[in-house]
């Protein structure tokens, strides 16, 4: 079928946007739940090698394995690490289903490290409990997922960027409009339920190297889902709780906690001294990292030079072959050898990510956003610190629930006027003869983010940042693309731009400091539980503007005692001062 001006329309039951980690699992779960449903996985890249795990993964960062921890322990750990601002029900559902998911992946052929007795070889990295499970052979995970997609006859549509979610006249999500990244063709996918799995918003800030694509996150994850959610009217949450990670200086590989930590490596200052008790990534840990970086004992280093030769070889095997295999080349280029000296570290650019932090599109424990028929899973949704296993579990939850949601539903009526006007807006940069290249527009927005929105956050600076970003709105009608690829970048740049504004609006709204460095607000240096023990929801007003409101924290399902609440506030090693 085509609609006016030859825009092709495909009908499916369940549309999944993003075929990285959560997306394939959502597709398989939907098919397992309802084998007759037509399920499409739409991917901007190619599901064979897309997303954060394109080359594999070093391990599970948050496995809740019986005998090592209970779901209740895990809920406590994440509640504390996230300064109390969590939807505990959502974390609990993850924790309850975590072990079953590991077993499922294991049965599919994903290899997890086991000890001599055949038990999962768990490692302690978190402050309180034991949750890390190494996957030294983690490079085949995408292949395994792909096999499952084929077995369940999931339709895969590669090289399409979803750009706007469609809504029917009752306010339900009913598909999306997407742009072909090779031919600049605009298509409509009409569906009875939509699951967004578009990953983190990793291209908001600029890496210290200035290279636009040198981000921690896979740069195809540029915040499309966050922007789409905003425009369709879904609430986002915790955007002020940025993602900031400790990385190698100039190289976007994670440095320490999960791989080297259990083997004896640690984060040290210039004197080679340990200054944090626990390398598990949290806002408090990042605050200590930042202080050390800026203080007289900086910069900060990854220290491995005290380890035995075979341990270093083991570390090199994992770090240089799995997740980020170009890492060895980076070190070779600079003549760096873990045996000889410490490796310089730095902090990453800012981003939105629930996988590592708590920022994203609001979902509840069923994976539902605030728009009926629209689900979210993985790094783009709001279940905190969920990492890869959380993406799998919530992908599964969304797939199951969407399969139930569509029962008895008829295809929605499409809003033609909206679709044609969006088509024209999406293609506009290609119609111009000259103008502003997407790369320049993107660079400028991201440079403003670094100058004005990175922590430490200051009201006056954020005011200026927001003003300067708003001035860039006038540049959008001048964006210029010479081919389909540049058009993809032009549309991405507009989503990045939306995310930058959202970062400023949410950060200014929460007038306190929380989560260590993530929301270190200089004008309000204290945590204020009386006024701000709540979620901050960002939403679109009737006029189309960005606004925020408070959402109370749902009653806890796992209670904490007072001593536990402060566990993550005492991360600095006492001797280091």
């Amino acid at each position: 079928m085509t609609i006016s001006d030859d825009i092709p329309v495909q009908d499916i039951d369940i549309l999944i946007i993003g075929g990285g980690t959560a997306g394939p699992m959502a597709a398989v779960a939907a098919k397992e739940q309802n084998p007759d449903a037509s399920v499409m996985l739409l991917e901007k890249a190619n599901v064979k090698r897309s997303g954060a795990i394109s080359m594999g993964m070093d391990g599970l960062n948050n496995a809740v394995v019986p005998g090592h921890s209970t779901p209740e322990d895990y809920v406590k750990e994440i509640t504390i690490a996230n300064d109390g601002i969590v939807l505990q029900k959502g974390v609990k559902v993850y924790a309850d289903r975590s072990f079953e998911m590991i077993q499922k992946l294991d049965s599919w052929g994903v290899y997890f490290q086991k000890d001599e007795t055949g038990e999962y070889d768990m490692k302690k990295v978190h402050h309180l409990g034991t949750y890390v499970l190494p996957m030294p052979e983690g490079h085949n995970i995408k292949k395994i997922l792909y096999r499952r997609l084929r077995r369940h006859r999931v339709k895969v549509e590669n090289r399409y960027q979803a750009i706007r979610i469609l809504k029917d006249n009752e306010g339900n999500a009913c598909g999306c409009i997407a742009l072909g990244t090779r031919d600049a063709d605009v298509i409509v996918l009409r569906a009875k339920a939509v699951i967004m799995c578009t990953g983190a918003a990793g291209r908001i800030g600029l890496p210290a190297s200035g290279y636009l694509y040198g981000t921690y996150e896979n740069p195809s994850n540029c915040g499309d889902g966050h922007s789409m959610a905003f425009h369709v009217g879904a609430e986002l949450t915790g955007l002020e709780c940025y993602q900031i990670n400790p990385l190698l200086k100039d190289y976007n590989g994670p440095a320490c906690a999960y791989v080297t930590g259990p083997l004896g490596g640690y984060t040290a200052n210039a004197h080679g001294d340990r200054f944090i008790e626990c390398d598990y990534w949290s806002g408090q840990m990042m605050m200590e990292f930042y202080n050390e970086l800026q203080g007289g004992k900086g910069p900060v280093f990854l220290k491995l030079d005290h380890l035995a030769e075979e341990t270093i070889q083991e570390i090199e095997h994992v770090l240089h072959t799995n997740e980020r295999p170009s890492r060895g080349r980076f070190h070779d280029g600079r003549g760096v050898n873990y045996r000889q000296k410490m490796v310089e570290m730095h902090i990453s650019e800012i981003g939105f990510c629930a996988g590592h932090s708590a920022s994203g599109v609001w979902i509840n424990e069923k994976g539902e956003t605030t728009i009926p028929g629209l689900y979210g899973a993985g790094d783009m949704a709001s279940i905190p610190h969920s990492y890869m296993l959380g993406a799998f579990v919530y992908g599964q939850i969304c797939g199951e629930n969407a399969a139930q949601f569509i029962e008895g539903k008829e295809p929605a009526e499409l809003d033609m006027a909206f679709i044609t006007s969006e088509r024209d807006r999406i293609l506009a940069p290609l119609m111009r003869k000259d103008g502003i290249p997407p790369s320049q527009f993107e660079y400028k927005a991201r440079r403003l983010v670094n100058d004005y929105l990175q922590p430490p956050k200051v009201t006056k600076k954020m005011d200026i940042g927001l003003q300067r970003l708003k001035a860039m709105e006038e540049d959008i009608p001048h964006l210029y693309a010479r081919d389909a690829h540049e058009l993809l970048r032009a549309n991405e740049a507009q989503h990045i731009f939306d995310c930058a504004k959202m970062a400023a609006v949410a950060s200014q709204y929460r007038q306190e400091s929380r989560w260590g460095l993530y929301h270190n607000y200089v004008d309000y240096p204290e945590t204020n539980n009386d006024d701000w023990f709540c979620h901050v929801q960002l939403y679109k007003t009737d006029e189309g503007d960005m606004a925020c409101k408070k959402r109370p924290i749902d009653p806890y399902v796992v209670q904490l005692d007072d001593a536990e609440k402060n566990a993550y506030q005492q991360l600095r090693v006492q001797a280091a001062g």
Partner: protein
Amino acid sequence: MPTASQISMVPVIVDEEKCIAEKGCRTCIDVCPLDVLWINEESGKAFMKYDECWYCMPCEADCPTDAVTVNIPYLLR
């Protein structure tokens, strides 16, 4: 608004002797998450068309003839 082109040293190198794109291979182009590898119209071989690389390496790992080398982008070296 006039524009100008700037050159950029790209991180990914394709060995044209080894590349078998003329036999229909498109593996590296297919797997690249950033869609920056294309066919060079003149040589018929794969090449890096846009300097937008995550140095993630599926292109190199999946090439059937070992024609692809991923280097670290100059700005990061």
